[in-house]
């Protein structure tokens, strides 16, 4: 049988990480193929290779049984492959039609034939069931509609394979359903879709077949009728699933709460009040869908955004937190969501990153204690197992997991009593992920109260002594360790259940 697209033994290495190792997959005409795997499993790298963003180190790719060299995005487009990024690649300031024809505008001499772009845009927009004017500015559309504009753009470029990378991560339930209708319609017309997701529910609903990746390798394949939740999880996490928390704690009940939040209101959800507390030594997970207000809550706690009202108490004492400095002084630390933008300074040395937060405390009369800085950095590199050739290496040359360890190390030097982590294992490989989970446990055992936000169900289920579930700015549920299950968390996260 001949396939539309075939990937044979593709490998790709990045500094310090083997991102893909001997990956193979096939795609038939009009097939919806789901590619699933945990973060860092290699899904995005594979898709970037197919879309011509990166080139493989080894292996070959065939289209219509002919070996092709996808050396650039332009070549991929000519071959009929379109990649729709997780963060959409649309120009907000241009119209829908201008975006659809960006880079391949029909022209008369130097002039764009605007009328023609608008008429043909209308027809592809109709194909994806989107009823907006081709003259509307993309920035004025909702994310769901922008996603459909991307698909229309792909169709207009005669794409035969459309790759969608986590397309529903920012969509509402309603918008996701609209997207699924469009995908089914594409299948009818012989367009193939590669659908990347780690939302198992969606995969079950939309996919004809599933390819599972784990640690950059093929972990298995499931046909339509084999797609069950258990099968997927078994293939995705493999043996790692066996690893359980070494100890479970309800925190130190004898001592006061390490952190208590009373009637806290954030600017993004001003009508909801947040109430919860954390005991020393307790690990509390915060689950919820994207946009539920989890990151906003951490940012208010850490003084990055201002609270509209409410109280934050540490060890029973009310704190006035108006800046990260105040939060740090009160004994908090935040490992932020966007590691490269908020966590590390990429073009600075490992030692300088590690000392950034504690520099002031260690300084004598504003003068940097260089020797202390070096020995502290040495200690953190050893303690956290940060893989770096030396302390002067720029953080940008470290792998994601090691960068994250640098962010954590920066805070450990200050001995925080409350550690806030936002998606601490996002985009890092499985090994580093486990090390970070182990580190969280170790810190909790030392009495640090830990509040972590995660979008990965496995992590919430595995790491939490207790979990808070957020939905549209509220804490919709609180689950004790013994009550934790995927169904319980999803029930609260989608708003189906509330306490």
């Amino acid at each position, binding site marked *: 049988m001949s396939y539309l697209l075939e990937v044979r033994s593709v490998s790709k290495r990045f500094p310090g990480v083997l991102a893909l190792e001997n990956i193979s997959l096939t795609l038939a005409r009009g097939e919806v193929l789901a590619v699933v795997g945990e973060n860092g499993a290699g899904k995005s790298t594979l898709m970037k290779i197919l879309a011509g963003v990166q080139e493989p180190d080894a292996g070959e790719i065939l289209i219509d049984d002919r070996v092709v060299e996808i050396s650039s995005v332009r070549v991929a487009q000519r071959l009929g492959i379109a990649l729709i990024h997780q963060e959409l690649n649309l120009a907000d300031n241009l119209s829908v039609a201008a975006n659809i024809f960006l880079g391949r505008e029909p022209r008369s001499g130097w002039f764009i034939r605007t009328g023609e772009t608008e008429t043909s845009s209308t027809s592809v927009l109709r194909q994806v069931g989107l009823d907006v004017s081709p003259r509307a500015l993309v920035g004025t559309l909702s994310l769901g509609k922008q996603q459909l504009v991307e698909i229309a753009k792909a169709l207009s470029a005669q794409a035969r394979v459309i790759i969608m990378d986590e397309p529903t991560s920012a969509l509402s339930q309603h918008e996701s359903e609209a997207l699924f209708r469009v995908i089914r319609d594409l299948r009818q017309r012989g367009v193939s879709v590669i659908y990347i997701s780690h939302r198992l529910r969606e995969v079950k609903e939309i996919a004809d077949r599933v390819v599972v990746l784990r640690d950059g390798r093929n972990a298995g394949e499931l046909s339509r009728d084999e797609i069950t939740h258990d099968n997927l999880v078994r293939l995705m996490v493999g043996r790692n699933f066996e690893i359980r928390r070494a100890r479970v704690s309800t925190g130190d009940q004898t001592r006061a709460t390490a952190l208590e939040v009373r009637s806290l209101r954030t600017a993004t959800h001003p009508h909801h009040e947040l109430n919860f507390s954390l005991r020393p030594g307790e690990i509390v997970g915060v689950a919820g869908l994207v946009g539920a207000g989890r990151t906003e809550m951490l940012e208010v706690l850490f003084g990055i955004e201002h609270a509209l009202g409410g109280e934050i108490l540490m060890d029973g004492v009310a704190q006035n937190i108006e800046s*990260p*400095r105040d939060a740090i002084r009160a004994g908090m630390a935040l490992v932020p969501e966007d590691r490269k*933008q908020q966590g590390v300074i990429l*073009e600075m040395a490992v030692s300088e990153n590690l000392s*950034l*937060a504690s520099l*002031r405390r260690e*300084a004598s009369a504003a003068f*940097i204690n260089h020797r202390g800085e070096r020995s502290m950095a040495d200690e953190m590199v050893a303690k956290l197992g940060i893989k770096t050739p030396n302390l002067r290496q720029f953080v940008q040359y470290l792998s994601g997991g090691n960068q994250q360890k640098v962010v954590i190390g920066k805070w450990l030097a200050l001995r925080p009593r409350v550690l806030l982590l936002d998606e601490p294992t996002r985009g890092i490989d499985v090994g580093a992920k486990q090390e970070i989970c182990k580190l969280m446990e170790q810190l909790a055992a030392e009495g640090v109260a830990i509040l972590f936000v995660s979008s990965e169900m496995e992590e919430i289920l595995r790491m939490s002594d207790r979990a808070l579930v957020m939905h549209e700015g509220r804490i919709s549920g609180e689950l004790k360790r013994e009550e934790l299950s995927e169904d319980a968390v999803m029930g609260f996260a989608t708003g189906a259940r509330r306490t």
Partner: protein
Amino acid sequence: MKKLLGITGLLAFVCIATAIKEPNFLNAYNLQNTIRWTALFSLIAIGVSFVIITGGIDLSIGSTIGLVGSLLAYLLTIKGWSIGAALLAVMLVSLGIGFAHGLLVTKMRLQPFVVTLCGLLIYRGVARYITNDQSQGFGNSFEELRWLATGQASIPFTGGLGAGGRFGLPFPFIVMLIVGILGAIFLNRTIYGRYLLALGRNETAARYSGINTDAMKMIAYVICSGLAGVAGILFSLNLNSVQPSGLGEFYELYAIAGAVLGGCSLRGGEGSILGVIIGTAVMRVLYNSINILRIPTHWEFAIIGGVILSGVIVDELVKRVAAKRRAAR
């Protein structure tokens, strides 16, 4: 230190080439003059490098110099203020200017380019208004004060040095040394210098690490305008006659060019004080060479611009080679 090799080599090359073609380059008067001007321009280049390190820019330096210089002469000669009061007043004006820039950039979130471009226009206008656009001068009085700019300290144990007379270090050079040393200590040895470098690279991450980034940026703008004020005092004393419409014109561009030649990246987060001084020296020596070698002065800007551009291009190429080597490893 390795980064400074290129620019130091360029300085040495220009000096030696000029000296070979025209030995008068090395006479005491010419050397002193070149050193004096290098020192004066270094002050503003050091100042602007702090702002550039934060990722900002200051285009108003020349106008600040014009305002401070005109105001100083005006207060001393026409208003009859005492020397101390006049110096204090002009320094407060320049520090106030920096403070205002900092506030507008951090609290109002305006772009540094726009804020200081408006400053460039405003301070020049104010200088011309206050003095009624009349040239101001110190005349023959204020000899002691003018010594700050024109005087020189003899170097111990050297006796007479240089072709044709006693050689002494121009006083502005000593001011530059003090400012340069303090600046280098601030930048490399204190936590605030580290904070400036960090926020220049990634302001968000610096803020998330508990650094008061707004306060640090304010400090950078105050340092920059404050040093422009000091330079304004010395420039006017050195020239003796001050044109409110002309003093300091284009100087901000020399300062920025010196900083960039000396290794500051306009993207922020990078810079060394010694580099900035050497970068400024390259420009002043080039200027001097053009004059002393009797190259038509019309060429001045073109030559200086060309040299800076080539310097920056070579620097970028070297960086790329280094990056490739690192990647290949």
